[in-house]
């Protein structure tokens, strides 16, 4: 190729020069095509129009707002209005239906679960966690234990009226668990024996002992009225079962001692004051769908 270029170079060399010469070196003049200038000028004209139409230049007391009246806030509001309009038919149906009907509706269920998930993140995740796994004192919503019941209606009622909520007359409140130690209802030794018995309920491998036997009697006198014989729990009272692997506050001896000494009385707000009924229904459907929901 080099050969050919050399041969034809003198002939091809018809390019104009700018007339600038430095030490015999000339500057070629290869001008840009003129239409580029027109495109450039068109861009300037476009920019002027853009500045007039859209918010643009800062001024001493704000900025030029533009004749279009466009703003990000307005755009957001418009998009939200659009989304609300799209959701309106679903919401209208949900308002007329019970949570169980919503969950059974193949069209509404995915909507309610998705919408309930968003509402959960805003209203519930602070205590129950983003993954609904709960925390110490805040129930895990993924498992199969429910303090007050795990049907759609139970969950709906719990969210609506809360638990031991001060500002709802229909709240679930059968009183807290008494502070057996602090209020001197049981002695330290009695508490120790009850703990031994309670731990044996969920762990059959523990060897029998006199503490367990004595604890059983104390349990029957003091605890079974709420937690039932054998510690199977009572949902009417919100008393958790003590014979399984799930512990709201913890199943180790130290935590159980804390529980028996100071009592427990978890509180959940009544969401009827904060959320509309439709949102609570969607929350119920979502929480019920997490794997622990009861029929």
């Amino acid at each position, binding site marked *: 190729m080099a050969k*050919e270029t050399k041969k034809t170079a003198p002939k091809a060399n018809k390019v104009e020069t*700018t007339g600038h010469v430095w030490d015999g070196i000339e500057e070629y003049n290869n001008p*840009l095509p003129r*239409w580029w200038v027109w495109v450039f000028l068109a861009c300037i004209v476009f920019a002027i129009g853009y500045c007039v139409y859209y918010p643009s230049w800062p001024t001493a007391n704000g900025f030029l707002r533009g004749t279009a009246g466009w703003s990000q806030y307005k755009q957001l509001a418009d998009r939200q209005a659009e989304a609300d309009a799209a959701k309106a038919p679903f919401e209208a149906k949900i308002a007329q239906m019970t949570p169980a009907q919503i969950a059974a509706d193949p069209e509404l269920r995915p909507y309610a679960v998705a919408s309930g998930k968003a509402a959960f993140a805003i209203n519930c995740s602070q205590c129950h966690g983003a993954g609904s*796994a709960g925390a110490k004192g805040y129930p895990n919503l993924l498992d199969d234990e429910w303090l007050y019941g795990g049907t759609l209606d139970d969950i709906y009622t719990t969210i609506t009226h809360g638990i031991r909520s001060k500002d709802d007359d229909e709240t679930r409140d059968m009183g807290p668990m008494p502070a057996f130690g602090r209020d001197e209802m049981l002695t330290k030794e009695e508490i120790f024996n009850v703990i031994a018995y309670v731990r044996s309920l*969920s762990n059959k491998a523990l060897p029998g002992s006199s503490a367990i036997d004595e604890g059983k009697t104390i349990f029957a006198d003091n605890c079974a009225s709420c937690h039932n014989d054998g510690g199977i729990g009572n949902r009417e009272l919100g008393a958790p079962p003590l014979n*399984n*692997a799930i512990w709201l506050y913890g199943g180790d001896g130290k935590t159980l001692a804390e529980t028996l000494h100071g009592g427990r009385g978890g509180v959940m707000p009544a969401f009827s004051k904060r959320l509309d009924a439709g949102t609570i229904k969607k929350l119920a459907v979502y929480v019920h769908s997490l794997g622990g929901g009861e029929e």
Partner: protein
Amino acid sequence: MSDHQPPEEAGLLSLFEARKKISPARVRGPFRRFKWAVMAVLLGIYYLLPWVRWDRGPGAPDQAILVDTINRKFYFFFIELWPQEVIYFTGLLLLSAMALFFVTTLLGRVWCGYACPQTVWTDLFMVVERWVEGDRNARLKLDAAPWTLDKIRKRVVKHAIWLVIGLCTGGAWVFYFQDAPTLMADMLHGHVPFVAGFWVCLLTFSTYLLAGHAREQVCTYMCPYARFQGAMFDEESLIVSYDATRGEPRGKPSDKGAGDCVDCGRCVAVCPTGIDIRDGQQYQCINCALCIDACDEVMIKLDRPKGLIRYNTLNNAVPSGARLRDLHKYVRFLRPRVLYYATIMAAVGGFMLFSMLTRHMVDLNVIHDRNPLYITRADGSVRNVYTVHIVNKTWAEQLYTLTMPDMPKAHLSAEDVSPSTDGQLVLTVKPGKVGTYRVYADLPRGEVSGKASVDLHITNGTYADTYTSIFVAP
């Protein structure tokens, strides 16, 4: 250096070069005929391909080539690509690039000269121009003429036809993205979807602008390929060249001692990019070979051998008058760089073909829930939650049985799925869809402690897939 003129002192625009309008003359000859044939085939393919039907069974689109942007699928006859198979497009691009390098190394800018849409559509627009306004001389005269009714009529007709071609171009384009007969019926009834309307307008405008007005400027100013072609040529590439040894010095036919070139200027007059091939290889030359036809015409009239301008190599290996079938005697086609490109093409093509043939009709994808990693159940068992995606690439509903072969004691269940009579978890996936399920795996206490690797396996008897995930326990 006194003969160099300084730039005139004038306005901004004088610093920039106005386009010198090119009015190529008509030319006849074998290359021109070949180009007509190529144009007919390529335009035919472009305009008719969306109308080709291909039966994929009920429920599936029956368009042979369809880019389904809404469902994010690409159909090409028997091939159907899903979004996760976009790798094939990478392969296709690689293959196209290598094919371009390969052919350019062998034959110069044949893509530019014959097959590039810019060339094909510009050619088409030029035919229209010639048909309405006449050949080169008539057009030059018309350009210089004052605005008469006749000139206005010719210009209006020309631009109208150009716009109609542009409209057809844009119109055909949108048919690749939706079912062509349905969209056509919709558009004829005046229901033009916004996206389709937008693309029709855009392509009408761009076709009209690029093929009607910008023409060779697209190649000289916009297209990067024109500028890096030099890296792909070598001394043995066959390109359109002027045989200076035979042609120079130029002179009248009667001149003694003059070369074969009579300086008639036909090669320049027919050139669509307005260059003089006799100046040697230059970046504006798209190797369209029309100057070969033009020069041969003149050589025949002068009773001189054809091929003063011909396909030749830069080291001048092909003699004037060499026949096509003898080219291999003069040109070494099997050169290292040709072989490199061929090897890469074969490797990429072979890989694509292999993976296409061994492509699975089902794809299993599993995401282990991370928040929480596990759930303790009342009976002490440990639950792990998996989000299972099953891609069903067939056009029939499929029932897949999900198992965890490593953990026979694990009980599997899924939301909204009732277990089959034999206790198996059977997941249904609709035709051509992705089925998504939240699957719960419950393992008795103590089976796993910490983290264990676990395979999730699906099968329907015909198709099967396995995904390795984890199981986490306290």
